[in-house]
């Protein structure tokens, strides 16, 4: 694994305090691993030639140049069409949770959002930011200028996951708010009523938005690593339950799987990309998901 690729690991990224650097590292590490040129092939306006490199799409080889020079060159294009993206960040208190990872769910989501923002701005896609807890709290309109990256980062850096949450209501609000067809990237642990959440997601889809649902859970929430008798407290409702963790693990995991499965199947049916993440996973999965989605748009 190269040094840059290792930046895709949450524990490494955590050590970088500056969010902009984090985003850069993430994207560069991610790109390094792809062995392809994700920057290219999306726009139609020619910008320059360059030598063919393994990983380039052979269809981009400029055969005229080859005829003249007997060398392979590929054509590079400027992006012609832009995709408006919205980063939708859940501010609920539960997002600030981690059991034993370097990053909380919220940190993880912010890093991810920053990286995506970086990629989008770099591609001159307009990107905006929406945060919500029980309702939409802040909204940064999408722009494709380079300074937008800075704006997004400064906003992200100041966010604190403190409130109660009503994902369904907030997403409904968002659906009403968005005028143009956009890619809506939601970062949440989805710890609410799944039926209500799905209703609001349907609403977004109904307005022809592309929705990528990053379902981020803490590693502990996925593996239930507790041992013996434990008392668990919900940070939002402050409800407490005593359980025998060892005895209960199987049931918990089953329940969680049912929960995720429900989202998985319903999202699939409604054309929503459902990305299951936990805070111990590398970021590339999330980034790749965005790129695939973006590519699918053309």
């Amino acid at each position: 694994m190269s040094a840059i690729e290792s930046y895709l690991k949450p524990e490494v990224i955590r050590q970088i305090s500056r969010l902009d650097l984090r985003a850069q590292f993430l994207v560069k590490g991610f790109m390094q691993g792809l062995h392809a040129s994700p920057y290219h092939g999306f726009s139609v306006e020619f910008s320059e030639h360059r030598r063919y490199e393994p990983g380039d799409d052979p269809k981009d080889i400029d055969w005229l140049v080859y005829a003249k020079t007997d060398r392979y060159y590929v054509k590079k294009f400027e992006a012609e069409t832009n995709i408006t993206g919205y980063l939708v960040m859940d501010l609920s208190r539960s997002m600030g949770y981690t059991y034993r990872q370097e990053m909380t769910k919220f940190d993880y989501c912010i890093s991810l959002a920053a990286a995506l923002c970086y990629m989008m701005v770099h591609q001159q896609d307009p990107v905006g930011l929406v945060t919500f807890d029980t309702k939409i709290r802040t909204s940064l309109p999408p722009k494709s200028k380079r300074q937008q990256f800075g704006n997004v980062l400064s906003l992200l850096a100041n966010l604190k996951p403190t409130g109660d949450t009503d994902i369904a209501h907030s997403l409904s609000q968002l659906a009403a708010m968005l005028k143009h067809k956009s890619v809506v990237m939601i970062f949440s642990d989805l710890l609410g009523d799944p039926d209500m959440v799905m209703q609001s997601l349907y609403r977004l889809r109904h307005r022809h938005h592309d929705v990528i649902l990053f379902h981020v859970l803490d590693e502990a929430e996925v593996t239930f690593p507790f041992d013996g008798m434990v008392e668990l407290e919900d940070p939002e409702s402050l409800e407490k339950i005593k359980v025998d963790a060892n005895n209960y693990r199987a049931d918990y995991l089953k329940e969680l799987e049912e929960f995720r499965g429900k989202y998985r199947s319903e999202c699939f049916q409604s054309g929503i990309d459902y990305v299951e993440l936990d805070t111990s996973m590398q970021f590339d999965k999330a980034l790749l998901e965005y790129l695939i989605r973006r590519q699918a748009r053309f």
Partner: protein
Amino acid sequence: MQFANLSLLLGGALVSIPIILHLVMRQEPKHFEFPALRFVKQKNIQNQRRLQLKHWILLLLRCCAIFFLVLALALPSVASSAVGTWLIIGLLGFATVIVGLLAGASWGSPKTKRLAIGLTSVAVLLFVGLLALLPFALSQEKGTLLGDQEAPVAAVFVFDTSPRMEYEQQNESRLAVAQRIGGYLAGQLPDESEIAIVDRATRGIVFATNTGAAQQAITGLEIKPGGDDVVDLLLDALDKLEAHEKKRKELYVFSDLSTAAWDSARADRLKKRLEELTDVAVYLLDVSAENISNTSISNLTISADSVSRNTDIYLQAELFQEGPSSERSIELYLEKQDPALPIIEDGILLLPEATRRHRQTVKLASDQGALIPFKLAGLEEGLHHGWVQLTGKDGLAIDDRRWFSVEVREPWDLLVVEGQNARSSDLVDALAPPAFLASDRAAFEIEVISQSKLENTDLDLFDSVILLDPGTLSARNWRDFDRFVRRGGGLAMFLGSNADLSNVNSEEAQLVMPGKLARQWRAGQRNWFLAPEDYQHQMLASFREIGTSVPWNKFPVYRHWSFDSLAEDANVIVRYNNGVPALIEQAKQKGTVLVFTSSISDDPATKAAWNELFTSFESWPFFVFSNSMVKYMVQKSEGKFNYLTGQRAIVATDDNEAGKTHLLFTPHGDDPQEVTPEANTINIPFTHSIGSYRLRTTGSGNPIGFSVNLLPKSTRMAKVELSTLDEILGESRYHLAQTQEEVVREQGEVRVGRKFYAYFLLLAAFLLGLEYALSNRFYQTEL
């Protein structure tokens, strides 16, 4: 159930530790924030219930493991008799726990509710069964003291020293085997034990605190032909053990287990006593021999102990063959009469020379008997000793010989008193037939007088007096008769028409009469006759074999007397067929009074006879009966010369030597003992040795004596069935052993009981293992 380390049971309190840990020291759960609580909540309630159940199961297993560990260390043991019941209880308990656990587990899931109900019902039923069985098990152990093998005991060793125990096999008698095992066991008893040795001759059981003394007593045991039987010995031993202060009591019985030893009328009482004294452990040591081969003279009968001169004496030996068939010779020896013998010379008993009078070879089939008759004729007057013996050797020598003593004496003097018009000729001819008188063989010398001459007759000159149809007798006559009878004379009365009610019922007459006379009865058209109910009385012994074919009904009785009431000690020997007593016997001190309620002396020519007992055609039954009657009467007052072991012998001395000291020579040949007669008789209570006993004065004079034999059939060695032993001693109430090893093992089981240490330890280990496996399963970390 008892415990060797009872105090360790206090360790049972340790069971509380897991309970306390479970209830009080409950572990405080670690606190965690956990936003995904909604996934936990879904199945929480059901899970909590399952969790609690698992906790309770583990708690139960832990408690059980500790409980059984403590139980094992307390060294529990139960009486072997109750092992079966305790095992069933154990299994029931185990099943209850298992079914209970399963039931508990099924209650945890709503899907298995029906199963849970079923299992719970089964568990409850098992538990009820357990509760029902527990008191039974405890009652089985009531009084049984278990525990330390080395706790001192009070032990009684009962040895059957009957002659059967002399049976030899492999050069060792049964008694020797019993002594060997007994000596060993006595030595093995714990220190400070008290031991009593009891055999047939023991009088009063005394406990010895010294094992050596007990062993010495065992070594000194001898065969005792007489004495108490085993059942009586056991009863005495149980009484002593009951009173003994020691807590642990043991009774050892050494017996050959022959039917004869255990055939006792008091068996029921023994069983009852054993049921009462549950704290006495009974060990029955079977010292019987295998493949017995023995020929015995199991009985010897003699026609009469005392006969008049010239009377033939008939003896009958009863042989019995146990084991394979054999051919044996049987001989009869008769001692010559020698007034100078016996004497002890140089420590040896010198007896008169005996000559063999008969010899006969008999072939005896296996387990079959034979009756061998002998006849002795022409014996001189005086007492004769002799014996019947089998030649050759077999396993048991003591029953190869039986002794007899017979007295030949002058004919008995009879006085026949005729009442008015009474005719004595029929009776006289019956008692002393003319042909016998001619050949000097008659058993009786009869003098006939009329009643009027009675006043001037000395009754003491006669052995017996017969009154034929007596009329009114004076008060003096009645008193004379009373005195005569009390001294040993026999008085027979045949009541007829001369009898006067007031005279017979007078105060003086009642000294002799067995009751108040009531009235005369006439048969009229009715057919009355003598109707003996059975022939058990000695007087009727002659009829025993032909009992039912005696034609009594051919000899009608037309008239008879009846009594109002009979004295308590009066005994009706024969009744008429109408139920009225015909012949009544009453013992008066040494003598006997016989009253026949019909007359046999009527002259048929003068008046209607009272009966046809003598006058009917072929009147043999009454001929025999009258002879038996008079012989019974005279022999009652005569000496008895043949006894069985244990009986008290009574010997009449010669009138000339009354009051003189006599020397008693026992069959043992010990130094003679001096005995002094009292009222012309010598009582000898100790007839435990078999053989001829002889008595003579220190001066001259004819020796007197008697013979003592084993009880008939007392040496039959057929073994008693185990079921019979169970009936006598009570099932599971005794421990049967044949060898030292067996009895030691039985001792261990009774003293310490069946130990459960290993089982409980195993169970505790199993429970701990189960607990470990379950807790691992319950708390396993799923990675």
